[in-house]
């Protein structure tokens, strides 16, 4: 098991190197001059030239890449020119909210999605199944931004139950309750699609488990339907679902750009969009590297978990 984890960790190195290279190249090839983006429309050619020089943009591409890579290996992601602060500091502040939002959305979608999947499978072709299937379809097809605005309108503007945006109240806020109040609407908006996906897949997986011999065996032994469902079939289905959940976690991590914008959630998604439009090269490179690492690590975690849960894989 340890050897497996170590091997997987070592595999990360070429993956991250590849990601760094691709991101670096894309940013370098994008039209638009970072120096102009900083100095704005008033820039004179002299000030542009001197800033380009200062930013190291006059160096050849390959040298810029290796200088950056060398610094990254020493834990220095450089300085964001648009924000006038170290990239590490900026990401350090932003990764927390993104992880929190993704984790909350993941928790919601796992509980609701798997729950719906199991119930639907257990009541296959009956009204429960049909209602849930309908809801799941709705969840997958409702546009995220529309749902987000609708939630804001109903719960914040009309009912005043929950705040519109932000992570904490802007004046005299703070504390866990305040945070949870702010977290609820964005987490729901973000979780809807993942919930639908997990519900559909877990229903299928559950049905497959229920058709297996061991289930027939368990029923023949005289176990109650409850025991069959939750003690046997569910646990096996969970093992199958873990990698899917890992993938969804990855999507939730990287896919929250619009939700972060509407709810003014101070996370990485919004940071990246802003950084790209202001040609903040180092911030984009650093941000993508961190998100990609998180994505890869989450999937690694899922694989390890599945490994631990499913003896059949362990034996392979």
């Amino acid at each position: 098991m340890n050897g497996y984890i170590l091997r997987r960790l070592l595999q990360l190195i070429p993956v991250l190197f590849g990601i760094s290279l691709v991101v670096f190249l894309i940013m370098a090839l994008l039209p638009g001059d970072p120096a102009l983006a900083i100095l704005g429309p008033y820039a004179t050619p002299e000030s542009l030239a001197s800033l380009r020089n200062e930013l190291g943009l006059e160096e050849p591409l390959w040298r810029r890449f290796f200088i950056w890579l060398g610094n990254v290996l020493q834990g220095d992601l450089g300085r964001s020119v648009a924000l006038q602060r170290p990239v590490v500091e900026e990401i350090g502040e932003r990764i927390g909210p993104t992880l929190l939002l993704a984790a909350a959305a993941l928790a919601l979608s796992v509980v609701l999605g798997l729950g719906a999947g199991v119930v639907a499978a257990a009541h296959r072709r009956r009204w429960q199944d049909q209602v849930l299937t309908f809801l799941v379809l709705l969840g997958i097809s409702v546009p995220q931004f529309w749902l987000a605005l609708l939630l804001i309108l109903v719960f914040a503007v009309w009912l005043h139950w929950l705040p519109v945006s932000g992570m904490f109240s802007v004046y005299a806020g703070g504390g866990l309750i305040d945070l949870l109040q702010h977290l609820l609407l964005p987490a729901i908006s973000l979780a809807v699609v993942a919930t639908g996906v997990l519900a559909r897949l877990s229903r299928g997986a559950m049905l497959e488990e229920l058709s297996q011999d061991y289930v027939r065996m368990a029923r023949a032994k005289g176990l109650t339907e409850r025991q069959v469902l939750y003690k046997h079939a569910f646990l096996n289905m969970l093992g199958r679902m873990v990698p899917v959940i890992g993938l969804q976690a990855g999507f939730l991590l990287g896919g929250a750009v619009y939700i972060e914008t509407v709810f003014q959630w101070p996370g990485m998604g919004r940071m990246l969009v802003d950084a790209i439009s202001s040609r903040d090269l180092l911030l984009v490179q650093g941000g993508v590297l961190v998100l990609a690492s998180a994505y890869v690590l989450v999937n690694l975690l899922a694989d390890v978990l599945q490994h631990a849960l499913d003896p059949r894989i362990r034996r392979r």
Partner: protein
Amino acid sequence: MRKRLDNMPASFAWLVLILGALFTAAACTPEGDRRPDDVLVIGQTAEPKSLDPHVATSLNDFRISVNLYEGLVRFREGTLEPEPALARRWELSDDGRQYTFFLREDVRFHDGTVFDASAVEFNFERLLNEDHPYHHTGPFPLAFFFDKVENVQAIDAYTVVFELAEPFAPLLSNLAYPTGLMVSPAAVRRYGIDYGRRPAGTGPFRFVEWQPRRRVLLERNPDYWGEVARPRVLVFRPLIDPMTRVAELMAGGIDIVTELSPDNVSLLRSDPRFRVHEQTGPHLWFLILNTRSGPFSDRRVRQAVNYAIDKRALVENVLQRTATVAAGPVPKAFGWAYDERIEPYPHDPERARSLLREAGLGGRVTVRLLAPTSGSGMLAPVQMAAAIQGDLAEVGLDVRIETYEWNTFLGKVNQGLDGQADMAEMAWMTNDPDTLPYLALRSAAAPENGGFNSGYYENARVDTLIEQARMTTDRDERGRLYRELQRLVREDAPWAFVASWRQNAVTTCRVKGFALQPSFFLLLRDVHKS
């Protein structure tokens, strides 16, 4: 990417908000506002970049800075005319090359240090002198406002002299601009390049904290030399998404919000719980025409474009009255320099067609127009390009629109239009009538020389007028020169003059004492909630 994200949900969101408006009650009772009355929350359009006023270039940052800092002079409320601030008065030498400022003696920075002549010296040395030990705390993109300043010297503790290379009339308005605000030398020395996040000025509010993406918090400066501010606390919130800004306002999360979209303004205008404020600023939205080659090298064709564009329809339909029609190269907000007798080119397609025929362009002609997808002061660049395309098609000019991301667009336009396009959209917001003509209409400001005259306009008389006006310190005389310039440039039509942006802000009906300024700054000292 950003544009698509912003636009896609707009129609949905619009629908949702109309529904919202229908369901909400009348009368001045904004619910959801659970803050003390002396706390004002302001919804901004973006996260600030820097609270160092010499580093900042965006209005979004200036709106905070002008409450933290003061300059030697400031714009008198409701105008763009400089009046004394940290300088009690000033004297100008006869040759127009030496300004002597006599400073107030009762002013301290928020960090407790004294504001005096040596502080002024430090500020301008840091800005202008590349060898200054704190010049590296820049870059200072707008330092060119003071490039005629050769030397700034403290004569005694409260007298400071500015020596100019030549007479330079815009100096005072440039000093009233945020680039002329006075920062605390002690704070700059202490925080170095992080000063922009730990600002200290002399203004009616002092800095408390900056929590990125959540808020910038200022509090009343109890030791302020002038009248002490009425709000105890100002909270500036970055709310990037326009829908979120409106939703926060409607939910009672903010008291004042700036730069709402036209749709939202018309929605809130009819709602008694809110007040819409509007103010036309020193802004000009125009098309640069390539006067060097192609069809627009003929003045008649350029005039034809000006006649063909239906500016009133643009302003009323596309921009939904968030702008006014512009008549010439000097925005109306510069009252003393503006020629009231100048009329905008009327919308006259017939006249345009006959001018085109005269110029030998009877058939259909294809012209290329560069437009950005968005950008500072550009209003609705893509929709406006489409509307202009429609107007010009009517007179026989087929416009091919090419859109670019803002920075790419600037890079292209600033190189000059020749070989790239016949027209380009552009917008400027300035603080002195000199700035735009000097940077973008002088023949010496051609792109080859690093200027912004991307359409290569050349008129010797206009060049002379610009040079004379910036050297003339008598304001009436300057005004006369600018009025002549406006008439000439309007006639030559190197640009198609389109619109001046009318800034908007919406407050809840409880907010009192609030007024927008022509400078677009947000002065909050006397604002309060009832």
